[in-house]
């Protein structure tokens, strides 16, 4: 076992299934940080994503409540995945989740319980509490968590619909910092999807996540923060597909030495 999964290992080809729905795209995009709504919509379209994350925030009363994200007609075609970004306790996350369901009339949820403001790393204790509550409430919980496989197993056992380990701090663009932890997590969590959430900075980062055997990738800053978000969205779309295909194709084993690709006999003399 070269530690890089294999077609046998994680349901090759099968589309990404979340809450009983199958999605053709394995890329989930955030809707934050875009210069304009138009740029966001164009980027989402270029990415081929079918699911987009949104945040829940207070209405600015002075604004007369205009400018809800969902005013963008372009969003109607996507599955909306509300998050609990910015919540620092299970209780706050649960309240935000209930409001999100009231807003979206769907029970899909990206659950975040943050434990540290500088790294935005999850508070996995609070995350487990909130997951237990929200699963009872009937939510399809997709928890943003660390790459700790023990926590991942507990989240799964608590009824999470997928595991979403971070690759690196949110918005850092550092790529997968610990491939070995992710590899070990993937070998353990085989019954629900594993989606790398956070840290992807460029196309190869997304490809690497998929080559390790992840079922999907969720990103926001990697696209929205690029000089040309639309073009980067296109790159990410292809990178996720390329990484998945490579994972299923089964890569050539690594060797320390060379092995000729042209015949070594029948040379002229």
């Amino acid at each position, binding site marked *: 076992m070269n530690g890089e999964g294999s077609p046998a290992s994680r349901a090759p080809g099968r589309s990404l299934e979340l809450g009983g729905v199958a999605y053709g795209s394995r890329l989930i995009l955030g809707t934050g940080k875009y210069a304009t709504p138009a740029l966001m919509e164009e980027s989402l379209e270029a990415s081929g994503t079918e699911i987009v994350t*949104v945040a829940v925030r207070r209405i600015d009363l002075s604004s007369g409540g205009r400018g809800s994200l969902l005013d963008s007609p372009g969003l109607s075609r996507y599955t909306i995945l509300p998050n609990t970004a910015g919540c620092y306790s299970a209780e706050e996350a649960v309240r935000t989740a209930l409001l999100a369901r009231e807003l979206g009339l769907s029970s899909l949820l990206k659950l975040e319980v943050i434990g540290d403001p500088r790294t935005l790393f999850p508070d996995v204790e609070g995350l487990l509490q909130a997951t237990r509550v929200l699963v009872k409430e009937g939510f399809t919980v997709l928890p943003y968590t660390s790459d700790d496989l023990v926590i991942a197993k507990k989240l799964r056992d608590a009824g999470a619909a997928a595991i979403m380990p971070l690759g690196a701090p*949110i918005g850092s663009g550092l790529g997968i910092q610990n491939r070995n932890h992710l590899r070990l997590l993937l070998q353990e969590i085989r019954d629900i999807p594993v989606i790398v959430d956070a840290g992807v900075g460029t196309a190869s980062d997304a490809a690497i996540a998929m080559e390790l055997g992840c079922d999907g990738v969720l990103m926001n800053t990697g696209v929205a923060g690029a000089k040309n978000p639309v073009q980067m969205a296109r790159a990410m779309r292809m990178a996720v597909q390329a990484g998945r295909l490579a994972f299923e194709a089964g890569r050539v084993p690594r060797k320390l030495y060379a092995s000729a690709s042209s015949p070594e006999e029948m040379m002229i003399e």
Partner: protein
Amino acid sequence: MKVFVNGEQRQCPDRTTIAALLRALELPEGRIAVERNREVVPRSRHSDTELAEGDRLELVRFVGGG
């Protein structure tokens, strides 16, 4: 009577309903979720839910996020 909306104190007539408050604030019914004293009030109950002195309301919507 006074209530708190998204943290700000507001005056409103006694027995104002949530629906009435939203109208007063010129907020569209749709795409807004309302929490009253930490309990979500479903849209279907907006018109028959009367506010009481000191109620704390959260009015939220979706915004761009990751």
